[in-house]
């Protein structure tokens, strides 16, 4: 399969901080390729290098066959970029913003307005085409920013945290749209710290932590890593940090992690033994159990196993949203 991005030992250093540390990967034509990692992992820095906004300190990369340092202007003709911030012009209407982008990308004069209107219809913004961008809701701004990135029908689309700050409905609608783009043959490079988003959308995922790639694989294969050990999920009436600490003390050789909604997950061990210990802990009067389940590993479980990080490091950045 043809590679649209080829990255070799790509590195970015800001003074003493090594933001991206000798990473290597390829993105295949037509896939949704996910860059998953906590804040500060180097996701945005990688996108900035691949789109010409930042020069690599070392290593090299080719985007659609073009070198990202010497041929980046040519590469930009075929790529679309949706930055983390919706950065169109508040003072221009939705239509004028798109027409301006069409002008910058050299779309013939007689096609600009039609192409802009077509995208406004696709994104459900046609009725508001003459409204100023500054008056749009966060979700509408995000949608128009994606539309702007598609104005020149790019072969490759970079999406940097596309659903950050969106409500559940807007995020779902945007994910559907990303899925549709893939069906139209657009290769998508997506960065996210939403585990479920990566699981839902991506064909392959890179797990990036502190600028280094820990694993590249399909979501299924990543989850298979976590399947090697048992996972017991215990729901408590009211989960406190004391309960998590107490369980960790009783099961010192296992990983006990609080997830959400008063639940903890216990990774590893023999299920019967783990269950016995948990029930004993509850019986001792320290906690009231609602439910105990053996669970199928999710991408979150795989992430925990691969990175050794708590999923809370990702959840915290979502402003509480999970």
């Amino acid at each position, binding site marked *: 399969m043809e590679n649209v991005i080829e990255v070799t030992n790509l590195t970015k250093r800001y003074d003493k901080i090594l933001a991206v540390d000798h990473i290597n990967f390829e993105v295949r034509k037509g896939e949704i390729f996910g860059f998953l990692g906590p804040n500060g992992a180097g996701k945005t820095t990688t996108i900035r290098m691949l789109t010409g906004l930042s020069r690599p300190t070392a290593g090299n990369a080719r985007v659609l066959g073009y070198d990202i340092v010497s041929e980046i202007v040519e590469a930009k003709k075929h790529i679309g970029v949706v*930055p983390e*911030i919706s*950065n169109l*012009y508040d003072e*221009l209407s939705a239509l004028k913003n798109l027409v301006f982008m069409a002008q*910058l*990308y*050299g779309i013939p004069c007689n096609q600009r307005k039609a192409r802009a209107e077509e995208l406004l219809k696709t994104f459900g913004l046609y009725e508001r085409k003459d409204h100023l961008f500054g008056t749009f809701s966060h979700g509408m701004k995000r949608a128009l920013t994606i539309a702007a990135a598609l104005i020149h029908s790019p072969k490759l689309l970079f999406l940097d945290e596309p659903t950050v700050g969106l409500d559940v409905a807007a995020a779902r609608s945007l994910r559907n749209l990303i899925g549709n783009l893939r069906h139209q043959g657009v290769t998508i490079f997506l960065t996210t710290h939403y585990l479920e988003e990566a699981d839902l959308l991506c064909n392959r995922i890179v797990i990036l932590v502190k600028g280094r790639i820990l694993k590249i694989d399909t979501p299924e294969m990543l989850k298979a890593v976590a399947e090697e050990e048992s996972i017991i999920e215990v729901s408590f009436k009211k989960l406190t940090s004391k309960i998590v600490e107490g369980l960790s003390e009783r099961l010192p050789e296992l990983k006990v992690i609080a997830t959400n909604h008063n639940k903890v997950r216990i990774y590893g061990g023999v299920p019967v033994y783990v269950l016995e210990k948990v029930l004993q802990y509850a019986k001792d009067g320290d906690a009231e159990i609602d439910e105990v389940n053996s669970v199928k590993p999710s991408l979150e479980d795989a992430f925990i196993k691969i990175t050794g990080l708590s999923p809370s490091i990702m959840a915290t950045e979502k402003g509480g949203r999970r």
Partner: protein
Amino acid sequence: MWRDDLRGIFYIALKDMRTYYLKPPSVSWGIVFPTAWILAFYLRNPQNFEQLVPGLIAMTILFSTTAAEAVVINFELRLGSLERLLLAPISLPAVLLGKVIGGTIFGLMMTMVVTVGSVLGLGLFQVNLVYLALIIVPSLLVFSSLGALLCVLVKEVFEAQTLLNAPRFIMVFLSGVVYPVSAMPLVLQYIAYLMPLTYTVDGLRQSFSPSLSIFVFVDTLVLLGFFVLFVLPAIRLLYRRFV
């Protein structure tokens, strides 16, 4: 590639004109302020208003070109919209030149209003239009690029505006806008000749003079030198900020 850059420069300048320049704050800063300032001198000494016309035009060039630079550069840097321009298939120098040309075109419009108004209102029909063009166009480029250079040096809009005010007001006082440079103490004369506005005022005075002078061409060359001196570091600074 140069065609992509030219297209980019044109549309960035056009967008900036529509979005920022042709708005009341820029128009008032670019044209009302110089006019009010010169009128204050006129009321003090109404007999020699013709002598103040080159200074009035020079101030209009200076203030109109730099009127919205802080907005077109620092505000866009803060919002990330300048970054959006850099994602387009045009070079970084083309993006900066688009910003500079936007200021230049707006300055030209404001300067035309003041110049035509002064010529018709005061009957200054002896003006040499070729000389005038040779001074006005490079001056617009110089002050627009000076504005761009000072704006890319800092992050915030208020910092840029503060930084822009210093050279603007120093030049107004020392470049012969109101008081001839030759009447100043020798030290100030040396300082005056380090400032581009001095050459703008000098060239404009010669444009309104009935005699022909080769020194207009010297002024033009010096002004073009200042343009290069300002625009190249501005491009370099923008490169350092992004690449």
